[in-house]
Every structure is written in structure tokens, then in C-alpha cells.
């Protein structure tokens, strides 16, 4: 009971401080009083301390099994311990919202430390505190994690079996942190608009914060795919479910921003567009929370449907109206300093990339809200499944991969004939890959085209490292040391190409597992064999044991001289819900993936076996992407793009880059 009082009190204090910080911060920016900006910032930090204290109280409630807190009783029980018990913090709605607020407070607080007490810093404090105050209002008024139960039950309900997995420890915190982090670049964008600074300073400040949110969200999405693949046992990793889609939307918008912000840095163009993208990403994140929490769209994931839906809808409406009005008001300030000289140029490629990403976001959003739109317009709900997304987004993804091969080779301003020469290497490598596939017996046009484009895009990314390595060889000192120094000084450049390479590897993994997945389903008795792909699976033995009160079926399968063990556990306390433990034999080229299906009895099991080609490439590529993001956003190094001049991809035309 004490913990609940402490936590609720801390949240209330944080709410009051955040409201105060919001008013003082905005007033300080308006009235140009730097002293008030300091006051607002400290109030924001104070609110952050309150949120940290409340989070600590809730975590302590879990660790001490304080079932007088309803949220603790509803999401844990006495048998849980260790990391999973600690992770039950975000196993439900109220805790997730508190975690979100915590991330916003911490990242926002750190970003304000370097924002100064000028008008930009003052307004940024005001906007961040407004967002924080909104979340704290929801947490204190509508969805409190500290609601109490009297009398306290002797034991809690426990965590859903599907969440009892190590994936639970990493996927939700990254995804939620990503969602929360989109609020920080948004706050700086709004602050820049309010203060009337549309110069490069806000881009420099926002780019790293946007990269942080983007990286967290990317990691969260990947871990979600990894979890779905390893735990849910359907052989796939992405189902185009509305809940997955809304998590992808802000990531897509920010991918566009990361690229278009360079056009503003280098060429002074696309200013209003960049503001729009940062605002869009945040609005999509809020929209996603609204969709997920309101239950307004049918999803395989059903979260608690609660009263917070309308609050988020109202908040979203305010965010859109205020940002739109500000953008319109500041339009004269956002005019481009230069004009697009030629469409065939680096900036032209960035623009096309942006349009494709926004097109992707629109397509995914359309598919997600179609039930709502058709329900309103036609009176009956239409829905679309994966086939819609594959048809509508496939050509866009293919074009983006082609752009990944050709775009980075384009010089700024205007491409001459030299560009065509530079395209030779990726074109040859792409053709070689297609020829390799053809020789391997592939005849359909789509895999051949994908092979060509993916190999070409990979070649373009690798070429950049080859070129850097050659340059390093001519620098003084030993070659590896020079290469590392070169990469460290040009972090943004090499981070970006590493991320591109990661995307190419992910694309290959998705293409491979999508095009060539094989599946066999069969009822098998002990001693019988099931073959799938080039594997022969022999059922060696089956058993049934009761572990922690939960009946668990086990099937041992022989593959060559290896053994695979697949299990299925039934949870009587969850209404007989069962959870599978997939047996996966992973190699660099393909995964053998075996699921013990429902309806298993001793001596006879139903097996679903998949061969999933190249799935491990998805995880490897995502790791490269995250490494590249870390390298590109690591503080220090070259202050501006390319301090230590590596010869540009192509000699720039007369007048060259500065």
C-alpha cells in the first residue's frame, strides 16, 4: 500500500511540475527571458525525477510481490522471478504508458541540457513538458498504474504465457522507447518554428535525436520480428497486422527525414518538408498508440481497450492543428535558398527516395485504416490482408532498392556522363547475381529482378568501403589504423553506408524467405519420417511431462545425426491456452523450423515443418543497420560531413561541393 501511495504521489507531483514547466517554458520563449527558461528546464527535470520515482515504486511493487497494487496483481504472480518479473512492468497498458513517459523524460531531459537557454531551448522545454504533462494527466486521471486492491489477493494472475519469453525482455522496451523518443525531435521542430529559427542549427540538433528514435524503433521492430518468428511458431516474422503497421509508420516517415535533412544541410532546400516529416513521425506515433489502445481496428493483438483512446485522439488532433498552423504561419521563412538544378542529382535522388517512403507510409496507413474508412463511407467494413500489402508496396520497395544502387553514386547538383560510368560496377555485379540465379535453375522474372537489384545495391554500398580503404592505404601510418581513423572521422558517411549494406542484407533475407519458403504438415508416429526440402525428419520419441503444473509435450526428432527438440506446453490457468516451443536449426543459408502442432498425443504428433531460406540474413542485416546507426550518430568525429576529404564518389562538376 505504501508503494502505491508513493508512486501515485510522485506521479501527481510530476504532473504539477510538468504543467508548470510547460507554461513557464512557452512564456519564456515568447517573452525572451532566459532566466525563466532555466526555471522551466529545472521544473522539467524535477518532473522527470518524479516519473523516475514512480517507476521505481512500481518496479519495487513487482519485485516485492505487492499485490495490493492492482497492476502488479494483474500482471505477475508469486512463481515469477528474476528478469521476467521485472519486465512485467510494461506487460500491461498502465505500465507501458509509465515507461513511455519515463523514456520521454530521460531523453528529453538529456537533450535539453545542451539546448541552451535561448528561445529554441525555452520553447523546446515548453513543448516537451506539454507532451509529458499530457501523459502524466492520462496516468493520474484515466489509467493509473497505482490503483489499489483491498483486500490484497494472496497471489496475482500471472503473465500471459505468450509473454513468458526472453523476447519480452527486449522487444517492448525498444519499441515503446522508439515511440516515446519521436516526441523529442518533434519538440525541437515545433520550438524552431515558434522561435523562427529555420536555419541549419535545428537540423543539427534534431538529426541525432531523430536518428536515436529511428534506431530504437528499428531495433524494436526487428526484435518483434525475431520474437514472432522464434516464439509464435507460424514460420513467419511479419503479418501486416494493424499493430505492426502502426509501429512501422513513424519509422518510415523518419527514414525519409534522415535523408532529406541532408538536402537542407547541403543545399538549403526542402525546409518546410523536413519540418513536416518530423511532425508527421510524431503524429503517426501518437496515432499508433491511439489505434493500439482504443481497439478501434480489429487486430490479432488485442491490448486493453480502455478509456484512453479518446484522450489520444484529442491529443493527436491538437498536435496536427497546432503544427499545421505553425507551418503555415512560418511558410515565408521556409523558402528554399536554391532551386533544384537537375532531377538527375543527389538531391533529386533524395527527393524520389522521400516520395517513395511517404508513398509506402501512405499505403500502409491506408490498408490499416481501410476498415474505418469503408465502415464510415459504405456502412460495412472492408479489410485487406498481406496480399494487399505485397501488391501495393512491392513495386515501391523494388524501386527503393534500385535507388539504393544508383542514388549514392549521384553527385550533388547535377550528374554528368561520369555517373553512367560509375554505374558499371553495380550493374555488372547485379547481372552476375541474376546469371547465378538463372544457372541455379531460377526462371521466374521476380526473383531474377530482385537478385539483380539487391546485388547491385550491395555492390554500391561495398564500393564505398573499397574506395575508402584504397584512400586509407595512401595515408601515412599503418593501413588498418589509417582506415579506422578515416572511418572515425567520417562517421556519418561510413555509418550511412554500413546501414545501407544492412538494409540490402535484410532485403535479401526477406526476398529469400518469401520466395522460397517450403512447408509440410503431417501426422507422424514414432519411427516415421517426414521430409521437407532436403531434410528428412524422423520422430525418435515423444513424451509428456508436467512442468510447474503445466503439461508439456516433447517430440525428439532426428535430422541426419543431429537431434531437434520441439515442445508444446498447455497452461490450464489460462483456460487451456497452449504455447509452442519451436525447434529451429539455423544455418547461414536456411532455417529448418519445426512446430509441434495442437492435437498431439503420446506416440503420435502433428508436425508442421518449414524450410525458411535466408532468414538469418534478416537478423544479421538488422545488426549491421544498428551498428551503422550507432556509428553515424556517435558524438564527435568530423563536425560536418566529410571533414577529411575522401574524393567524392565522382568528381563534382566545376564549382564543386564547398
Amino acid at each position: 500500500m505504501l508503494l502505491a501511495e508513493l508512486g501515485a504521489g510522485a506521479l501527481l507531483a510530476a504532473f504539477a511540475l510538468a504543467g508548470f514547466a510547460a507554461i513557464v517554458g512557452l512564456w519564456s520563449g515568447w517573452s525572451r527571458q532566459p532566466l525563466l527558461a532555466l526555471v522551466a528546464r529545472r521544473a522539467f527535470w524535477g518532473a522527470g525525477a518524479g516519473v523516475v520515482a514512480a517507476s521505481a515504486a512500481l518496479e519495487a511493487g513487482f519485485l516485492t510481490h505487492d499485490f495490493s497494487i492492482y497492476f502488479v496483481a494483474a500482471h505477475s504472480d508469486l512463481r515469477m522471478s528474476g528478469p521476467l518479473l521485472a519486465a512485467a512492468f510494461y506487460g500491461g497498458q498502465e505500465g507501458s504508458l509509465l515507461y513511455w513517459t519515463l523514456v520521454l523524460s530521460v531523453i528529453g531531459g538529456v537533450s535539453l541540457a545542451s539546448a541552451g537557454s535561448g528561445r529554441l531551448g525555452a520553447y523546446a522545454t515548453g513543448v516537451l513538458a506539454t507532451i509529458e504533462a499530457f501523459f502524466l494527466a492520462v496516468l493520474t486521471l484515466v489509467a493509473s498504474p497505482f490503483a489499489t486492491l483491498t483486500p490484497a489477493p494472496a497471489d496475482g494472475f500471472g503473465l500471459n504465457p505468450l509473454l513468458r519469453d526472453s523476447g519480452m525482455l527486449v522487444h517492448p522496451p525498444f519499441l515503446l522507447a522508439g515511440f516515446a523518443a519521436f516526441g523529442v525531435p518533434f519538440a525541437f521542430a515545433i520550438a524552431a518554428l515558434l522561435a523562427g529559427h529555420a536555419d541549419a542549427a535545428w537540423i543539427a540538433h534534431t538529426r541525432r535525436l531523430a536518428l536515436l528514435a529511428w534506431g530504437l524503433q528499428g531495433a524494436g521492430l526487428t526484435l518483434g520480428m525475431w520474437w514472432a518468428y522464434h516464439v509464435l511458431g507460424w514460420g513467419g516474422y511479419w503479418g501486416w497486422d494493424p499493430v505492426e503497421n502502426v509501429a512501422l509508420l513513424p519509422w518510415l516517415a523518419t527514414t525519409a527525414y534522415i535523408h532529406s535533412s541532408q538536402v537542407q544541410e547541403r543545399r538549403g532546400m526542402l525546409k518546410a518538408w523536413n519540418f513536416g516529416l518530423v511532425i508527421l513521425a510524431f503524429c503517426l506515433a501518437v496515432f499508433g498508440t491511439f489505434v493500439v489502445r482504443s481497439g478501434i481496428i480489429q487486430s490479432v493483438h488485442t491490448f486493453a481497450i480502455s478509456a484512453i483512446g479518446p484522450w489520444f485522439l484529442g491529443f493527436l488532433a491538437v498536435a496536427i492543428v497546432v503544427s499545421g498552423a505553425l507551418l503555415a504561419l512560418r511558410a515565408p521563412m521556409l523558402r528554399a535558398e536554391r532551386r533544384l538544378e537537375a532531377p538527375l542529382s543527389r538531391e533529386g535522388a533524395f527527393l524520389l527516395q522521400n516520395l517513395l517512403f511517404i508513398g509506402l507510409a501512405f499505403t500502409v496507413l491506408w490498408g490499416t485504416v481501410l476498415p474505418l474508412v469503408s465502415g464510415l463511407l459504405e456502412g460495412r467494413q472492408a479489410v485487406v490482408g498481406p496480399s494487399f500489402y505485397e501488391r501495393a508496396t512491392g513495386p515501391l520497395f523494388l524501386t527503393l532498392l534500385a535507388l539504393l544502387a544508383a542514388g549514392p553514386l549521384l553527385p550533388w547538383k547535377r550528374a554528368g556522363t561520369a555517373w553512367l560510368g560509375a554505374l558499371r560496377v553495380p550493374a555488372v555485379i547485379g547481372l552476375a547475381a541474376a546469371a547465378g540465379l538463372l544457372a541455379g535453375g531460377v526462371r521466374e522474372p521476380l526473383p531474377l529482378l530482385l537478385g539483380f537489384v539487391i546485388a547491385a545495391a550491395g555492390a554500391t554500398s561495398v564500393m564505398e568501403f573499397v574506395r575508402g580503404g584504397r584512400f586509407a592505404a595512401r595515408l601515412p601510418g599503418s593501413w588498418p589504423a589509417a582506415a579506422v581513423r578515416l572511418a572515425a572521422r567520417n562517421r556519418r558517411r561510413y555509418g550511412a553506408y554500413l546501414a545501407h549494406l544492412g538494409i540490402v542484407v535484410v532485403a535479401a533475407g526477406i526476398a529469400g524467405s518469401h520466395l522460397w519458403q517450403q512447408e509440410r504438415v503431417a501426422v507422424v508416429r514414432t519411427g516415421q519420417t517426414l521430409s521437407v526440402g532436403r531434410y528428412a525428419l524422423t520422430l525418435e520419441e515423444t513424451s509428456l511431462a508436467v512442468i510447474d503444473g503445466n503439461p508439456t509435450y516433447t517430440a525428439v526428432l532426428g535430422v541426419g545425426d543431429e537431434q531437434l527438440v520441439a515442445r508444446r506446453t498447455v497452461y490450464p490457468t489460462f483456460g487451456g491456452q497452449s504455447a509452442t516451443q519451436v525447434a529451429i536449426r539455423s544455418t547461414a543459408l536456411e532455417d529448418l523450423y519445426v512446430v509441434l502442432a495442437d492435437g498431439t498425443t503420446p506416440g503420435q504428433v502433428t508436425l508442421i515443418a518449414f524450410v525458411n531460406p535466408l532468414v538469418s540474413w534478416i537478423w544479421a542485416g538488422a545488426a549491421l543497420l544498428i551498428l551503422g546507426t550507432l556509428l553515424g550518430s556517435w558524438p564527435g568525429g568530423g563536425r560536418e560531413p566529410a571533414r577529411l576529404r575522401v574524393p567524392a564518389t565522382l568528381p563534382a562538376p566545376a564549382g564543386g561541393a564547398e
Partner: protein
Amino acid sequence: MTRWVVLVGVVAGCVGYLVYSATGTQAEYYRTVAEVKGNPGGADSRVLGTVQNDVQRLDGGLEVRFTAAQDGVNLPVAFKGQLPDIFRPGIQVVVEGRMGADGVFQALTLLAKCPSRFTAAPAA
């Protein structure tokens, strides 16, 4: 300026066409159990219903027959394939398929909705 507008127009047009054509060919309507029962044959449709207490598993669990109910109307459903882990009486499922002549809805896909709140059902 006109170049930007042309590029934006072309890409927007392509995206619009892709979305339009994919929606036209891939969208399915949710129908109520009563509508599906009143119209055997017909196009593929999606139905949302609650699994009743009569689940029969055939063929080692590869085929399942059950009744899905919505607003008090019952629909017999047959489904072949892998059942979601959380499938059991009492949960909501979305089945996609068409009504057979025998009055049994032949589901091609079966999606189970995760238990709401991700928490335990109250002890029975």
C-alpha cells in the same frame, strides 16, 4: 519548381494507382454470421465469431470443426491447417472463406484474437 511538381505528381500517381488496384482486388468485407448463412456460395468473406464449446479435432489436429457464434446466431465452421496457439472455446476468431453447400463454412484462414489484456482469465 515545375520539375519538383512533375516528380511529385508522377510518384503520387503511381502510388495512388498501386493502392487503388490492390484495394480493388484484395479487399474483403466483414460479414455477419447471419449474412453468411443467408447466402451460401458467393464470394470469399470474413466473419468474426466466438468459438463455442463444441470443438472437434480430426486427423491428428490438422482439421478442426467448431461452431462460431455472433449475436446469438451459430455458424458451423471447418478449418484445415495450423491452429493458432491460443485457439480454444471462448476466444474470438476471424475466419476467412466461403459457405459450403452443406451449410458448413469452409475457412481458408483462421486468425485468433489474442486474449484481451494479455492477462489470465478469472479462475473458473
